[in-house]
């Protein structure tokens, strides 16, 4: 079974062969390209070895998200890339979404305003912090979906900017 993973710009391919024990995971490119012997150690725990060194990995799955910690190395989250997700990201470049769950404490723009890229349009407060939510592109404010005092979730779209011609 071959699995492709994108880390930043690079795509890693890992081929897993579980027909024998210990099974192997083969990395097709990168500094450590080659075969890893993998020993399962318990729920979500593996020991990986490239023949010279060994690492402890801990992994969990949550829907389409994968959580990975490699002891002494680092951690990452991966999400299955779907067409829908990509499309959603590309289709609305002018959306302003809340960076965290909290309360909208200030709305600094109104529909129809012409705004610059990076201009602060809303202020969200949560847990001792005020976060400015700024326009992702220059353009005209098409809609504002929040009022001062409204609660908001992380990722919730608070306003939309219609990017101007020169900005796109």
């Amino acid at each position, binding site marked *: *079974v071959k*699995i*492709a*993973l*994108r*880390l*930043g710009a*690079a*795509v*890693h391919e*890992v081929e897993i062969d*579980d027909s024998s024990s210990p*099974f192997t*995971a083969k*990395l097709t490119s*990168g*500094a*450590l*390209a080659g075969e890893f012997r993998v020993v*399962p150690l*318990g*729920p*979500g725990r*593996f020991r*990986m070895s490239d023949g010279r*060194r060994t*690492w*402890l*990995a*801990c*992994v*969990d*799955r*949550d829907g389409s*998200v*994968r*959580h*990975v*910690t*490699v*002891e*002494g*190395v*680092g*951690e*990452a*989250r*991966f*999400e*299955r*890339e*779907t067409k829908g997700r990509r499309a959603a990201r590309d289709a609305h470049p002018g959306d302003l979404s809340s960076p965290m*769950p909290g309360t909208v*404490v200030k709305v600094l723009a109104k529909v129809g305003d012409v705004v610059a890229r990076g201009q602060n349009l809303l202020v969200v407060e949560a*847990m*001792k*912090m005020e*976060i400015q939510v700024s326009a992702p592109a220059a353009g005209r404010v098409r809609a504002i979906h929040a009022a001062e005092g409204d609660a908001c*979730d*992380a990722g919730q779209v608070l306003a939309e900017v219609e990017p101007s011609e020169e900005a796109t």
Partner: protein
Amino acid sequence: VKKVLVANRGEIACRVLAALREEGTASVAVHSDVDAGALHVRRADEAVEIGPAPATESYLNVERLLDAARRTGADAVHPGYGFLAENADFARAVEDAGLVFVGPRPETIRLLGDKRRARDVARSVKVPVVPGWEGDASDRAGAARAAEAMGWPVLVKAALGGGGKGMQRVTRREELDRALEGAERVARASFGSAEVYLEKAIVEPRHVEVQILGDGEGTVVHLFERECSLQRRHQKIIEESPSPALGAKAREALVKAAVAIGKAVGYRSAGTCEFLLDRDGSFWFLEVNARIQVEHPVTELVTGKDLVRAQLGIARGEGIGFAQEDVEAKGAAVEARIYAEDADHGFLPQAGRLLRVELPGGPWIRVDAGVGSGDAVPVHYDPMIAKVIAHGSDRASAWRRLARALDAAVVHGPVTNLDFLRHLARRDDVLAGRFHTESIETVILPERAKRAAGETRDLLAVAAALADRFDLAADGTGPAAAGGAGSGTSARRAPGPFESLAGWRHPGLRGGGV
């Protein structure tokens, strides 16, 4: 004090409940509806639901807390930190209800809660305070003149605030009005008063604080200092004792100042005097935190004194339980706070269900956690998950143990600052004790932004592939049955490409090898 209601949640509620259990004192936990199965509820003898998730309707609701105490027959209330811990009206209401408040007297809380009056107390015992202006800030021109006279940058602080909430740093005249407006807004919303004052911003200061205990009868002892300079957004994430920045003489002056302030107010219970330490070794009083603090374990490890038990003893009128000469600091301790927050994106708080929480203790490690695997980090409260505290005979060994414990820790679910903490525990400047309160934002974050070596990516990719290939939910130790099971994802389906979500991060380039 035979039955104590703990008016808090999370790790501090668990900490207080542990002390009560050790004493054999009966305990009552309170919880909001989303916290019904929370760890602190499981650690108490009984638990009372006090309302819905928003804190104002539960953990901040004085009536419901007192009602819970009445219904369970509790005779004392421990407030923990945060929530109502430094709310003088709450302390007053507890005492008026005939219950013991495990903390300072209400009038002490009120006095010290007004940062301007706390500064007066310090001045009265000849302790230097940070230069500032306490005039009427609605006179914007007057505020601007004062700031000009003090010299930029200045800090705008909430008079009734503390802990950096609503604090704004202003570097020039043009920003002042907006900063005042922002600080006033936060102050009004959070502290019920829009009053603010100005303080000169000390450049690259260190934050050092002194733990005190008072019996309320005039006796005050100190338990040495904690160094808390590693902060983000004016909130501490690493604390240690002793401070690597203090010599014996400076330490002596600092603890003396703290005891003098405590005595000046006849302090009762546990409290902390916070100071700023300048590069030349001079220090200024900042504020008193009239409560047990998040970082109290550091002091417990170096002094061997149980601060929560001391609070309970003082609340019973038994006194502090030991004298100043009995307090000896041995070795070093350092604490790291694990938060659900995204260090790569402005330390924004995160929330969600924890898939896995594995915080190995081990030799010389103390873990104070408020949650476990399967628990949630609710959006409504502080997103702290746990504190990992390491102890050693010297600073270097304490930090090495902390690094080891953080490396072995796994928290999967919401994004956490664990990888950032691991990075801190490996940096030469941190290990050498060379940092100040702005180091994280001005030095450490920009340097960390340089991404990991190829090896790190490779290992994370291989591990992620394992996550996708094996049925972790079932027995987790072998390949999934053909067709997939457990989580409902077919392990044998044609796998699509994955993209990293929060990026990938690394704690340093040690290269691994376990």
